[in-house]
Protein backbone atom coordinates (compact mmCIF):
# COMPACT_ATOMS: atom_id res chain seq x y z
CA UNK A 1 0.00 0.00 0.00
CA UNK A 2 1.38 3.34 -0.89
CA UNK A 3 -0.25 6.69 -0.73
CA UNK A 4 0.50 10.25 -1.50
CA UNK A 5 0.89 11.93 1.81
CA UNK A 6 1.91 15.09 0.02
CA UNK A 7 -1.51 15.55 -1.56
CA UNK A 8 -2.90 17.43 1.43
CA UNK A 9 0.19 17.93 3.53
CA UNK A 10 -0.37 21.62 4.13
CA UNK A 11 -3.93 21.09 5.37
CA UNK A 12 -2.79 18.16 7.46
CA UNK A 13 -0.07 20.21 9.11
CA UNK A 14 -2.49 23.05 9.80
CA UNK A 15 -4.94 20.60 11.25
CA UNK A 16 -2.36 19.10 13.57
CA UNK A 17 -1.14 22.51 14.66
CA UNK A 18 -4.70 23.65 15.31
CA UNK A 19 -5.86 20.62 17.30
CA UNK A 20 -2.68 19.73 19.14
CA UNK A 21 -2.92 22.31 21.94
CA UNK A 22 -6.43 21.15 22.82
CA UNK A 23 -6.60 18.04 24.92
CA UNK A 24 -7.53 14.75 23.31
CA UNK A 25 -6.68 15.88 19.79
CA UNK A 26 -6.24 12.44 18.27
CA UNK A 27 -9.82 11.57 17.39
CA UNK A 28 -10.70 14.98 15.93
CA UNK A 29 -7.51 14.85 13.85
CA UNK A 30 -8.27 11.34 12.61
CA UNK A 31 -11.77 12.42 11.63
CA UNK A 32 -10.52 15.35 9.60
CA UNK A 33 -7.58 13.47 8.14
CA UNK A 34 -9.94 10.75 6.94
CA UNK A 35 -12.06 13.47 5.42
CA UNK A 36 -9.00 14.77 3.52
CA UNK A 37 -7.52 11.49 2.36
CA UNK A 38 -10.54 9.22 2.39
CA UNK A 39 -8.84 6.64 4.57
CA UNK A 40 -6.09 6.24 7.14
CA UNK A 41 -3.15 4.22 5.82
CA UNK A 42 -0.03 3.56 7.86
CA UNK A 43 2.00 6.46 6.50
CA UNK A 44 -0.75 8.87 7.44
CA UNK A 45 -1.27 7.38 10.89
CA UNK A 46 2.43 7.49 11.62
CA UNK A 47 2.64 11.10 10.45
CA UNK A 48 -0.22 12.01 12.77
CA UNK A 49 1.37 10.08 15.62
CA UNK A 50 4.62 11.98 15.22
CA UNK A 51 2.82 15.29 14.81
CA UNK A 52 0.79 14.85 17.96
CA UNK A 53 3.54 13.14 19.93
CA UNK A 54 1.51 9.97 20.45
CA UNK A 55 2.93 6.45 20.07
CA UNK A 56 2.18 4.92 16.67
CA UNK A 57 0.70 1.86 18.32
CA UNK A 58 -1.83 3.95 20.18
CA UNK A 59 -2.97 5.67 17.01
CA UNK A 60 -3.53 2.31 15.36
CA UNK A 61 -5.27 1.02 18.50
CA UNK A 62 -7.70 3.91 18.33
CA UNK A 63 -8.26 3.64 14.57
CA UNK A 64 -9.13 -0.05 14.84
CA UNK A 65 -11.37 0.41 17.88
CA UNK A 66 -13.78 2.80 16.22
CA UNK A 67 -15.92 1.52 13.38
CA UNK A 68 -15.92 4.88 11.66
CA UNK A 69 -12.24 4.84 10.79
CA UNK A 70 -10.91 2.83 7.91
CA UNK A 71 -7.42 1.86 6.81
CA UNK A 72 -8.52 0.96 3.30
CA UNK A 73 -9.69 3.30 0.53
CA UNK A 74 -13.43 3.59 0.41
CA UNK A 75 -15.80 4.09 -2.45
CA UNK A 76 -16.89 7.54 -3.58
CA UNK A 77 -20.30 6.82 -2.15
CA UNK A 78 -20.77 5.25 1.22
CA UNK A 79 -23.89 3.16 1.28
CA UNK A 80 -24.82 2.66 4.90
CA UNK A 81 -27.57 0.16 5.50
CA UNK A 82 -29.11 0.34 8.94
CA UNK A 83 -29.42 -2.86 10.91
CA UNK A 84 -30.71 -1.22 14.04
CA UNK A 85 -33.64 -2.84 15.79
CA UNK A 86 -36.42 -1.03 13.99
CA UNK A 87 -34.85 -1.53 10.59
CA UNK A 88 -34.12 -5.17 11.36
CA UNK A 89 -37.68 -6.02 12.31
CA UNK A 90 -38.95 -4.04 9.34
CA UNK A 91 -36.95 -6.22 6.98
CA UNK A 92 -33.74 -4.38 6.12
CA UNK A 93 -31.87 -7.70 5.80
CA UNK A 94 -33.74 -8.21 2.54
CA UNK A 95 -32.45 -4.87 1.32
CA UNK A 96 -28.96 -5.82 2.42
CA UNK A 97 -29.11 -8.99 0.36
CA UNK A 98 -30.30 -6.99 -2.58
CA UNK A 99 -27.66 -4.30 -2.22
CA UNK A 100 -25.01 -6.90 -1.85
CA UNK A 101 -26.20 -8.61 -5.02
CA UNK A 102 -26.49 -5.37 -6.99
CA UNK A 103 -23.02 -4.24 -6.01
CA UNK A 104 -21.42 -7.66 -6.00
CA UNK A 105 -19.73 -7.06 -2.67
CA UNK A 106 -20.34 -8.00 0.94
CA UNK A 107 -20.94 -5.58 3.73
CA UNK A 108 -17.68 -3.90 4.68
CA UNK A 109 -16.32 -4.04 1.13
CA UNK A 110 -16.02 -1.59 -1.73
CA UNK A 111 -16.73 -2.14 -5.40
CA UNK A 112 -13.56 -2.59 -7.48
CA UNK A 113 -14.23 0.67 -9.33
CA UNK A 114 -14.44 2.41 -5.93
CA UNK A 115 -17.81 3.86 -6.80
CA UNK A 116 -19.57 2.44 -3.77
CA UNK A 117 -18.69 0.94 -0.46
CA UNK A 118 -21.28 -1.04 1.42
CA UNK A 119 -21.44 -0.71 5.17
CA UNK A 120 -23.81 -1.86 7.84
CA UNK A 121 -24.60 0.66 10.56
CA UNK A 122 -26.66 0.56 13.71
CA UNK A 123 -29.48 3.06 13.73
CA UNK A 124 -29.31 6.36 11.96
CA UNK A 125 -32.20 7.80 13.91
CA UNK A 126 -34.85 7.21 11.25
CA UNK A 127 -36.48 4.31 13.03
CA UNK A 128 -40.02 5.50 12.49
CA UNK A 129 -39.36 5.40 8.76
CA UNK A 130 -37.65 2.05 8.82
CA UNK A 131 -36.14 0.35 6.92
CA UNK A 132 -33.62 3.06 6.19
CA UNK A 133 -30.48 3.43 4.10
CA UNK A 134 -28.08 6.34 4.26
CA UNK A 135 -25.99 7.13 1.21
CA UNK A 136 -23.30 9.71 1.92
CA UNK A 137 -25.27 12.30 3.87
CA UNK A 138 -28.72 11.70 2.42
CA UNK A 139 -31.23 9.25 3.75
CA UNK A 140 -33.69 6.92 2.08
CA UNK A 141 -36.50 5.66 4.22
CA UNK A 142 -39.09 2.90 3.91
CA UNK A 143 -36.94 1.27 1.28
CA UNK A 144 -38.26 -1.80 -0.52
CA UNK A 145 -35.89 -4.30 -2.19
CA UNK A 146 -37.19 -3.39 -5.64
CA UNK A 147 -36.20 0.25 -5.18
CA UNK A 148 -32.60 -0.53 -4.37
CA UNK A 149 -31.22 -0.53 -7.90
CA UNK A 150 -32.87 2.74 -8.79
CA UNK A 151 -31.65 4.45 -5.61
CA UNK A 152 -28.09 3.29 -6.29
CA UNK A 153 -28.17 4.62 -9.82
CA UNK A 154 -28.65 8.14 -8.49
CA UNK A 155 -25.08 8.14 -7.16
CA UNK A 156 -22.54 8.46 -9.97
Amino acid at each position, binding site marked *: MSMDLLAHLQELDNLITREKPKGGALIPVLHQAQELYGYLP*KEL*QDYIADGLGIPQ*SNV*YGVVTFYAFFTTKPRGRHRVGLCLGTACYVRGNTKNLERLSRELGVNAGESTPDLRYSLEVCRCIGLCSKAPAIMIDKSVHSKVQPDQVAEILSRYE
Partner: protein
Amino acid sequence: MTTLTINGKTIEAPGGTILEVSQANGIRIPTLCNHPALAPKGACRLCLVEVKGSRVLQPACTFPISEGMEVQTESPKVRAARKFVLELLLSDHPKDCMTCEMCGNCELQDLIYEYGVKETPFVGDHHEYPLDDRDPFILRDMEKCIHCRRCIRACDEIQAVNAITMINRGFRSKVATSFDTRLQDSNCVFCGQCISVCPTGALTEKDSHGQGRVWQTTKVTTTCPYCGVGCNFDLNIRDGKVVKVTSNWNNPVNKGALCVKGRFGWQFLHSPDRLTIPLMKSSLWKEHKGTEGAPSRYEGFVEADWETALDAVAKGLLTAKSEDGPDAVGILASAKCTNEENYLIQKLARREIGTNNIDHCARL
Protein backbone atom coordinates in the same frame (compact mmCIF):
# COMPACT_ATOMS: atom_id res chain seq x y z
CA MET B 1 -8.10 4.22 60.18
CA THR B 2 -10.92 2.47 58.39
CA THR B 3 -12.68 -0.47 59.96
CA LEU B 4 -14.23 -3.15 57.80
CA THR B 5 -14.91 -6.86 57.90
CA ILE B 6 -13.49 -9.35 55.48
CA ASN B 7 -14.96 -12.83 55.69
CA GLY B 8 -16.46 -11.88 59.05
CA LYS B 9 -13.12 -10.83 60.49
CA THR B 10 -12.86 -7.23 61.67
CA ILE B 11 -9.90 -5.48 60.14
CA GLU B 12 -8.45 -2.01 60.54
CA ALA B 13 -6.52 -0.47 57.71
CA PRO B 14 -5.31 3.00 56.79
CA GLY B 15 -6.84 2.76 53.30
CA GLY B 16 -6.16 1.09 49.97
CA THR B 17 -7.99 -1.42 47.85
CA ILE B 18 -9.74 -4.55 49.09
CA LEU B 19 -6.96 -6.56 47.50
CA GLU B 20 -4.17 -4.64 49.26
CA VAL B 21 -5.90 -4.82 52.62
CA SER B 22 -6.66 -8.51 52.21
CA GLN B 23 -3.10 -9.33 51.26
CA ALA B 24 -1.76 -7.35 54.20
CA ASN B 25 -3.97 -9.47 56.43
CA GLY B 26 -3.03 -12.80 54.99
CA ILE B 27 -6.17 -13.27 52.90
CA ARG B 28 -5.35 -14.46 49.41
CA ILE B 29 -7.52 -13.29 46.54
CA PRO B 30 -6.73 -14.70 43.10
CA THR B 31 -5.73 -12.21 40.40
CA LEU B 32 -4.75 -12.32 36.76
CA CYS B 33 -4.63 -8.85 35.30
CA ASN B 34 -3.14 -7.39 38.43
CA HIS B 35 0.61 -7.08 38.82
CA PRO B 36 2.33 -5.36 41.72
CA ALA B 37 4.50 -3.29 39.39
CA LEU B 38 1.57 -2.03 37.31
CA ALA B 39 -1.44 0.19 37.85
CA PRO B 40 -4.57 -1.89 38.55
CA LYS B 41 -6.94 -2.34 35.64
CA GLY B 42 -9.92 -4.36 36.90
CA ALA B 43 -10.18 -6.20 33.60
CA CYS B 44 -9.88 -9.93 34.22
CA ARG B 45 -12.61 -10.29 36.87
CA LEU B 46 -10.75 -13.03 38.76
CA CYS B 47 -10.46 -11.02 41.94
CA LEU B 48 -14.21 -10.47 42.21
CA VAL B 49 -15.54 -10.34 45.75
CA GLU B 50 -18.91 -9.74 47.33
CA VAL B 51 -19.36 -6.28 48.79
CA LYS B 52 -22.48 -6.02 50.87
CA GLY B 53 -25.01 -3.69 49.28
CA SER B 54 -23.68 -4.08 45.75
CA ARG B 55 -25.81 -5.83 43.15
CA VAL B 56 -22.86 -7.03 41.15
CA LEU B 57 -19.56 -8.52 42.28
CA GLN B 58 -16.72 -6.05 42.60
CA PRO B 59 -13.06 -6.34 41.65
CA ALA B 60 -10.90 -6.33 44.77
CA CYS B 61 -7.93 -4.94 42.86
CA THR B 62 -9.57 -1.57 42.19
CA PHE B 63 -12.27 -1.26 44.82
CA PRO B 64 -11.25 1.05 47.68
CA ILE B 65 -12.16 0.09 51.22
CA SER B 66 -14.56 2.22 53.20
CA GLU B 67 -15.83 2.43 56.74
CA GLY B 68 -18.14 -0.38 57.76
CA MET B 69 -17.71 -2.29 54.51
CA GLU B 70 -18.50 -6.01 54.60
CA VAL B 71 -16.55 -8.14 52.15
CA GLN B 72 -16.71 -11.83 51.30
CA THR B 73 -13.75 -13.17 49.36
CA GLU B 74 -14.51 -16.89 49.33
CA SER B 75 -18.30 -17.20 49.39
CA PRO B 76 -19.89 -19.82 47.13
CA LYS B 77 -21.16 -17.01 44.91
CA VAL B 78 -17.67 -15.58 44.53
CA ARG B 79 -16.08 -18.94 43.85
CA ALA B 80 -18.75 -19.78 41.29
CA ALA B 81 -18.18 -16.47 39.53
CA ARG B 82 -14.42 -17.02 39.35
CA LYS B 83 -14.96 -20.51 38.03
CA PHE B 84 -17.28 -19.08 35.38
CA VAL B 85 -14.64 -16.61 34.24
CA LEU B 86 -12.04 -19.37 34.10
CA GLU B 87 -14.37 -21.55 32.05
CA LEU B 88 -14.79 -18.73 29.60
CA LEU B 89 -11.06 -18.14 29.38
CA LEU B 90 -10.51 -21.84 28.83
CA SER B 91 -13.06 -21.88 26.02
CA ASP B 92 -10.71 -19.65 24.04
CA HIS B 93 -7.41 -21.21 25.00
CA PRO B 94 -5.30 -23.94 23.44
CA LYS B 95 -5.10 -26.74 25.97
CA ASP B 96 -1.42 -27.15 25.34
CA CYS B 97 0.03 -27.30 28.85
CA MET B 98 2.14 -30.37 28.04
CA THR B 99 4.42 -28.53 25.71
CA CYS B 100 3.76 -24.98 26.80
CA GLU B 101 6.87 -23.16 27.88
CA MET B 102 5.08 -21.73 30.89
CA CYS B 103 3.71 -24.98 32.28
CA GLY B 104 4.17 -24.95 36.03
CA ASN B 105 4.81 -21.24 35.95
CA CYS B 106 1.52 -20.04 34.49
CA GLU B 107 -0.97 -18.07 36.53
CA LEU B 108 -3.88 -19.25 34.41
CA GLN B 109 -2.92 -22.89 34.80
CA ASP B 110 -2.62 -22.47 38.55
CA LEU B 111 -6.11 -21.00 38.82
CA ILE B 112 -7.68 -23.57 36.50
CA TYR B 113 -6.12 -26.18 38.77
CA GLU B 114 -7.22 -24.49 41.96
CA TYR B 115 -10.80 -24.10 40.76
CA GLY B 116 -10.92 -27.56 39.27
CA VAL B 117 -12.01 -26.51 35.81
CA LYS B 118 -11.55 -29.83 34.07
CA GLU B 119 -13.77 -29.02 31.12
CA THR B 120 -15.32 -25.87 29.86
CA PRO B 121 -19.08 -26.08 29.26
CA PHE B 122 -18.72 -23.73 26.31
CA VAL B 123 -17.93 -24.74 22.78
CA GLY B 124 -17.37 -22.22 20.07
CA ASP B 125 -14.96 -20.14 18.11
CA HIS B 126 -11.52 -19.56 19.41
CA HIS B 127 -8.73 -17.37 18.19
CA GLU B 128 -6.42 -18.87 15.67
CA TYR B 129 -3.15 -17.09 15.17
CA PRO B 130 0.06 -18.56 13.81
CA LEU B 131 2.92 -18.71 16.28
CA ASP B 132 4.72 -15.42 15.78
CA ASP B 133 8.43 -16.22 15.62
CA ARG B 134 9.37 -13.42 13.25
CA ASP B 135 11.36 -11.62 15.90
CA PRO B 136 14.55 -12.34 17.78
CA PHE B 137 14.32 -12.98 21.54
CA ILE B 138 10.54 -12.73 21.88
CA LEU B 139 8.16 -15.46 20.84
CA ARG B 140 4.51 -14.48 20.62
CA ASP B 141 1.81 -17.14 20.80
CA MET B 142 -1.26 -14.95 20.83
CA GLU B 143 -3.68 -17.85 21.05
CA LYS B 144 -2.58 -18.09 24.65
CA CYS B 145 -3.20 -14.43 25.38
CA ILE B 146 -5.91 -13.77 27.93
CA HIS B 147 -6.08 -10.04 27.22
CA CYS B 148 -4.97 -9.00 30.68
CA ARG B 149 -2.95 -6.16 29.13
CA ARG B 150 -0.10 -6.55 31.58
CA CYS B 151 2.37 -6.48 28.69
CA ILE B 152 0.86 -3.31 27.28
CA ARG B 153 0.99 -1.61 30.64
CA ALA B 154 4.57 -2.73 31.24
CA CYS B 155 5.62 -1.41 27.84
CA ASP B 156 3.92 1.87 28.67
CA GLU B 157 4.26 2.34 32.43
CA ILE B 158 7.68 0.79 33.06
CA GLN B 159 9.39 1.04 29.71
CA ALA B 160 7.65 4.11 28.23
CA VAL B 161 8.13 2.62 24.77
CA ASN B 162 4.51 1.87 23.84
CA ALA B 163 5.47 -0.52 21.11
CA ILE B 164 2.40 -2.63 21.69
CA THR B 165 -1.23 -1.86 22.28
CA MET B 166 -4.64 -3.43 22.06
CA ILE B 167 -5.95 -3.35 18.50
CA ASN B 168 -9.46 -3.99 17.19
CA ARG B 169 -12.43 -4.38 19.50
CA GLY B 170 -14.20 -7.09 21.46
CA PHE B 171 -13.54 -10.68 20.49
CA ARG B 172 -11.33 -9.54 17.63
CA SER B 173 -9.03 -7.52 19.84
CA LYS B 174 -5.40 -8.49 19.99
CA VAL B 175 -2.17 -7.30 21.51
CA ALA B 176 -0.09 -5.99 18.64
CA THR B 177 2.07 -3.22 17.27
CA SER B 178 0.81 -0.56 14.90
CA PHE B 179 -0.55 -2.47 11.88
CA ASP B 180 0.31 -5.73 13.64
CA THR B 181 3.87 -5.80 12.31
CA ARG B 182 6.91 -7.60 13.66
CA LEU B 183 8.25 -6.07 16.86
CA GLN B 184 11.41 -5.32 14.90
CA ASP B 185 9.44 -2.99 12.67
CA SER B 186 8.04 -1.09 15.61
CA ASN B 187 9.85 0.97 18.19
CA CYS B 188 10.22 -2.08 20.44
CA VAL B 189 13.60 -2.12 22.16
CA PHE B 190 13.40 -5.80 23.08
CA CYS B 191 13.71 -5.16 26.76
CA GLY B 192 11.42 -8.13 27.35
CA GLN B 193 9.49 -6.33 30.03
CA CYS B 194 6.32 -7.64 28.42
CA ILE B 195 7.49 -11.22 28.84
CA SER B 196 8.33 -10.64 32.47
CA VAL B 197 4.75 -9.69 33.33
CA CYS B 198 2.82 -12.02 31.03
CA PRO B 199 0.95 -14.50 33.22
CA THR B 200 0.62 -17.12 30.48
CA GLY B 201 2.66 -18.64 27.70
CA ALA B 202 1.66 -15.93 25.25
CA LEU B 203 4.97 -14.11 25.48
CA THR B 204 8.09 -16.10 26.15
CA GLU B 205 11.87 -15.96 25.78
CA LYS B 206 12.60 -17.49 22.40
CA ASP B 207 16.06 -18.78 23.22
CA SER B 208 14.93 -20.50 26.42
CA HIS B 209 12.30 -22.70 24.83
CA GLY B 210 12.55 -26.32 25.86
CA GLN B 211 15.54 -25.65 28.06
CA GLY B 212 14.01 -26.41 31.42
CA ARG B 213 10.81 -26.35 33.44
CA VAL B 214 10.58 -24.03 36.37
CA TRP B 215 11.11 -26.93 38.77
CA GLN B 216 14.15 -28.09 36.84
CA THR B 217 15.95 -24.81 37.22
CA THR B 218 17.29 -22.90 40.18
CA LYS B 219 17.28 -19.16 40.42
CA VAL B 220 20.44 -17.33 41.37
CA THR B 221 20.14 -13.61 41.91
CA THR B 222 23.02 -11.68 40.51
CA THR B 223 24.05 -8.28 39.25
CA CYS B 224 24.11 -7.64 35.54
CA PRO B 225 27.67 -7.35 34.26
CA TYR B 226 26.88 -5.30 31.17
CA CYS B 227 26.93 -1.84 32.63
CA GLY B 228 27.49 -0.06 35.88
CA VAL B 229 23.83 0.55 36.77
CA GLY B 230 23.84 -2.57 38.85
CA CYS B 231 20.54 -4.09 37.76
CA ASN B 232 19.73 -7.32 39.50
CA PHE B 233 18.14 -10.31 37.90
CA ASP B 234 17.76 -14.01 38.37
CA LEU B 235 19.83 -16.45 36.38
CA ASN B 236 17.76 -19.56 35.79
CA ILE B 237 20.23 -22.42 35.95
CA ARG B 238 19.81 -26.01 34.91
CA ASP B 239 22.66 -28.51 35.30
CA GLY B 240 25.15 -25.75 35.87
CA LYS B 241 24.16 -23.82 32.81
CA VAL B 242 22.25 -20.60 32.48
CA VAL B 243 19.10 -21.17 30.42
CA LYS B 244 17.19 -17.96 31.02
CA VAL B 245 17.25 -14.60 32.76
CA THR B 246 14.13 -13.52 34.65
CA SER B 247 13.22 -10.32 36.40
CA ASN B 248 13.80 -10.01 40.11
CA TRP B 249 11.05 -7.73 41.31
CA ASN B 250 12.40 -7.38 44.83
CA ASN B 251 15.64 -5.57 44.29
CA PRO B 252 15.66 -1.82 44.76
CA VAL B 253 17.95 -0.92 41.86
CA ASN B 254 15.91 -1.80 38.79
CA LYS B 255 12.73 -3.16 40.37
CA GLY B 256 12.46 -5.91 37.80
CA ALA B 257 13.13 -3.80 34.73
CA LEU B 258 15.88 -4.84 32.36
CA CYS B 259 17.28 -3.96 28.97
CA VAL B 260 17.79 -6.20 25.99
CA LYS B 261 21.38 -7.01 26.96
CA GLY B 262 20.66 -7.99 30.54
CA ARG B 263 17.66 -10.10 29.71
CA PHE B 264 18.67 -11.75 26.48
CA GLY B 265 22.41 -11.42 26.24
CA TRP B 266 23.42 -14.44 28.28
CA GLN B 267 24.31 -17.05 25.65
CA PHE B 268 27.92 -15.83 25.56
CA LEU B 269 28.34 -17.21 29.09
CA HIS B 270 28.73 -20.69 27.74
CA SER B 271 30.47 -19.74 24.51
CA PRO B 272 33.62 -21.72 23.76
CA ASP B 273 35.05 -18.48 22.36
CA ARG B 274 35.20 -16.88 25.77
CA LEU B 275 38.67 -16.12 27.11
CA THR B 276 39.22 -17.86 30.39
CA ILE B 277 42.96 -17.37 30.67
CA PRO B 278 44.94 -14.23 29.82
CA LEU B 279 46.66 -14.18 26.46
CA MET B 280 49.90 -12.35 25.73
CA LYS B 281 51.54 -11.45 22.45
CA SER B 282 54.13 -14.12 21.77
CA SER B 283 56.88 -11.52 21.51
CA LEU B 284 55.97 -9.94 24.80
CA TRP B 285 55.94 -13.27 26.53
CA LYS B 286 59.31 -14.08 25.13
CA GLU B 287 60.64 -10.74 26.31
CA HIS B 288 59.46 -11.48 29.82
CA LYS B 289 60.02 -15.16 30.17
CA GLY B 290 62.61 -15.95 27.55
CA THR B 291 60.67 -19.01 26.44
CA GLU B 292 58.24 -19.64 23.55
CA GLY B 293 55.17 -20.01 25.72
CA ALA B 294 52.12 -22.26 25.31
CA PRO B 295 50.45 -21.73 21.96
CA SER B 296 46.86 -20.46 22.05
CA ARG B 297 43.93 -20.67 19.63
CA TYR B 298 44.86 -17.24 18.32
CA GLU B 299 47.79 -16.71 16.11
CA GLY B 300 50.50 -14.50 17.58
CA PHE B 301 49.24 -15.01 21.13
CA VAL B 302 50.31 -17.40 23.81
CA GLU B 303 48.44 -18.51 26.89
CA ALA B 304 49.78 -16.69 29.93
CA ASP B 305 49.12 -16.74 33.65
CA TRP B 306 47.77 -13.76 35.57
CA GLU B 307 51.01 -13.08 37.39
CA THR B 308 53.03 -12.72 34.21
CA ALA B 309 50.32 -10.80 32.39
CA LEU B 310 49.85 -8.27 35.15
CA ASP B 311 53.61 -7.91 35.59
CA ALA B 312 53.91 -7.11 31.91
CA VAL B 313 51.17 -4.48 32.14
CA ALA B 314 52.69 -2.89 35.24
CA LYS B 315 56.06 -2.79 33.69
CA GLY B 316 54.76 -1.26 30.50
CA LEU B 317 52.96 1.47 32.39
CA LEU B 318 55.96 2.29 34.54
CA THR B 319 58.23 2.44 31.51
CA ALA B 320 55.89 4.78 29.72
CA LYS B 321 55.68 7.03 32.76
CA SER B 322 59.40 7.21 33.34
CA GLU B 323 60.34 7.71 29.72
CA ASP B 324 57.66 10.21 28.61
CA GLY B 325 56.08 11.50 31.80
CA PRO B 326 52.78 10.52 33.52
CA ASP B 327 50.65 12.27 30.86
CA ALA B 328 51.93 9.82 28.30
CA VAL B 329 49.52 7.36 29.90
CA GLY B 330 45.74 7.51 29.54
CA ILE B 331 43.17 5.24 31.07
CA LEU B 332 39.74 4.49 29.71
CA ALA B 333 37.42 2.75 32.18
CA SER B 334 34.55 0.55 31.28
CA ALA B 335 30.85 0.86 31.86
CA LYS B 336 30.85 -2.83 32.63
CA CYS B 337 32.77 -2.15 35.86
CA THR B 338 31.09 -1.35 39.11
CA ASN B 339 31.33 2.07 40.70
CA GLU B 340 33.89 0.72 43.16
CA GLU B 341 36.06 -0.62 40.37
CA ASN B 342 35.83 2.65 38.54
CA TYR B 343 36.81 4.49 41.69
CA LEU B 344 39.87 2.31 42.08
CA ILE B 345 40.98 2.72 38.50
CA GLN B 346 40.87 6.51 38.78
CA LYS B 347 42.91 6.22 41.97
CA LEU B 348 45.42 4.22 39.98
CA ALA B 349 45.52 6.89 37.32
CA ARG B 350 45.70 9.92 39.56
CA ARG B 351 47.68 8.74 42.54
CA GLU B 352 49.89 5.94 41.26
CA ILE B 353 50.55 7.13 37.74
CA GLY B 354 49.89 10.79 38.40
CA THR B 355 47.78 11.72 35.40
CA ASN B 356 44.32 13.12 34.95
CA ASN B 357 44.00 11.26 31.67
CA ILE B 358 41.20 9.10 32.98
CA ASP B 359 37.86 8.76 31.26
CA HIS B 360 34.92 6.45 30.96
CA CYS B 361 33.30 4.99 27.92
CA ALA B 362 29.82 5.99 29.04
CA ARG B 363 30.91 9.64 28.74
CA LEU B 364 31.89 9.48 25.15
